[in-house]
């Protein structure tokens, strides 16, 4: 059976989830730090928009993305006209779908992480003459790191498992846009149950070990820097 399996979906899934996780990690930190530290008019609305993909059906997210990035969409047309670059039916579409659905998880974890330590620690660092940038990397980031790492793992796992929005935006093109969840669906559709079982096993194993490792790491670090 193994000879018949095309491993492209595994590499594509790792590539799209990997790229989206890196992007989501930094944007999630940036936005959550800003939102936690600043009060401004309409803050609740902005937060609700950030978390919306968490509660919307993936097909709705996919529809919205198609609306934006499709050939006649606002962003899609701009990219096509000026850069001859297309998002729909390419693996870039899978990355964008993955970013949108995993962002709320990273954002939520990062927000909780930046709220859980005493703000006076940052203030103390500022009084010692350090710039906000230095204070962020030497105080805020290390103290929030366990929560940020949890967000990173959750975002990666979510990105890896993304199906609905990916199908709407990137479609199913074998050896181009077939991530593991898509490969499972179309393997079942065409009666290739062995292939479907194989990919299900891979996804379950990846998710399971990600959570197992995270729990082990958290338990180890919680005892190291107790306050």
């Amino acid at each position: 059976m193994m000879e018949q399996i095309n491993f492209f979906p595994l590499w594509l899934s790792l590539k799209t989830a990997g790229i989206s996780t890196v992007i989501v990690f930094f944007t999630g930190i940036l936005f959550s730090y800003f939102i936690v530290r600043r009060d401004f008019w309409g803050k609740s609305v902005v937060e609700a928009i950030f978390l919306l993909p968490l509660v919307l059906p993936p097909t709705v997210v996919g529809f919205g993305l198609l609306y934006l990035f499709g050939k006649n969409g606002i962003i899609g047309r701009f990219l096509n006209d000026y850069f001859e670059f297309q998002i729909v039916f390419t693996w870039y579409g899978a990355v964008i779908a993955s970013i949108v659905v995993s962002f709320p998880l990273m954002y939520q974890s990062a927000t909780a992480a930046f709220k859980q330590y005493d703000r006076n620690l940052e203030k103390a660092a500022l009084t010692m003459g350090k710039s906000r940038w230095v204070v962020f990397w030497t105080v805020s980031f290390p103290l929030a790191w366990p929560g940020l790492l949890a967000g990173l793992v959750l975002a990666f796992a979510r990105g890896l498992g993304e199906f609905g929005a990916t199908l709407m935006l990137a479609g199913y093109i074998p050896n181009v846009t077939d991530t593991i969840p898509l490969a499972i669906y179309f393997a079942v559709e065409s009666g290739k149950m062995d292939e479907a079982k194989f990919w299900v096993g891979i996804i379950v194993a990846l998710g399971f070990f990600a959570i197992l490792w995270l729990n082990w790491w958290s338990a180890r670090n919680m005892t190291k820097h107790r306050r």
Partner: protein
Amino acid sequence: MLTVHIKKRLSHFMLNVQFTIKKEIAVLFGPSGSGKTTILNCIAGLSKMNDGCIKLNDRILNQNGKVLIPVQERKIGYLFQDYALFPHKTVWENIVYGMKQEKFTRNLVDELNLTHLLNQYPHEISGGEKQRTALIRALATEPEILLLDEPFSALDAKTKQTSYEQLLRMQKRWKIPIILVTHNLEEVNLLADKVFYIENGVLVEN
């Protein structure tokens, strides 16, 4: 010398204080929630004010309420009530965070008897040791003023006595303005060169 005039709207009252202190220990004394910590935060540049002026030696820190010199450049040593030691850094890493000169800092560490604790983390040391670590960390930046926000409140009676003596010794040698926030009358009697009694945001004649 520190000249302070702060006007700041707080949730229940208007903070409106004006005072000057020289190279001495000034105690801000009064009930909880009367605006004492807010005054320290305004001097440190951590809180905005609506109006007023703060001048430290020849530098104007705030004018007409606006921040002229940001917190990082104020040369202020601030000891927070809970000490605000970085939990992920050792005692020594905490101390050197804003350190100017290592030799001078090492002398302070010796003098305040912290040498044997330098590799410990804050959660591994006692309240008195945390307080000394925070004091050295603030002094290691070689500040022009020291702000102390109830630094003795979490200490036992014996440690408090030692800490009082250390503070008086430091002040004698250092000769910078020190503002101590407290609601402990014993600290007022033992440490204060000058006392400001504050209630509902205004200074009350004592």
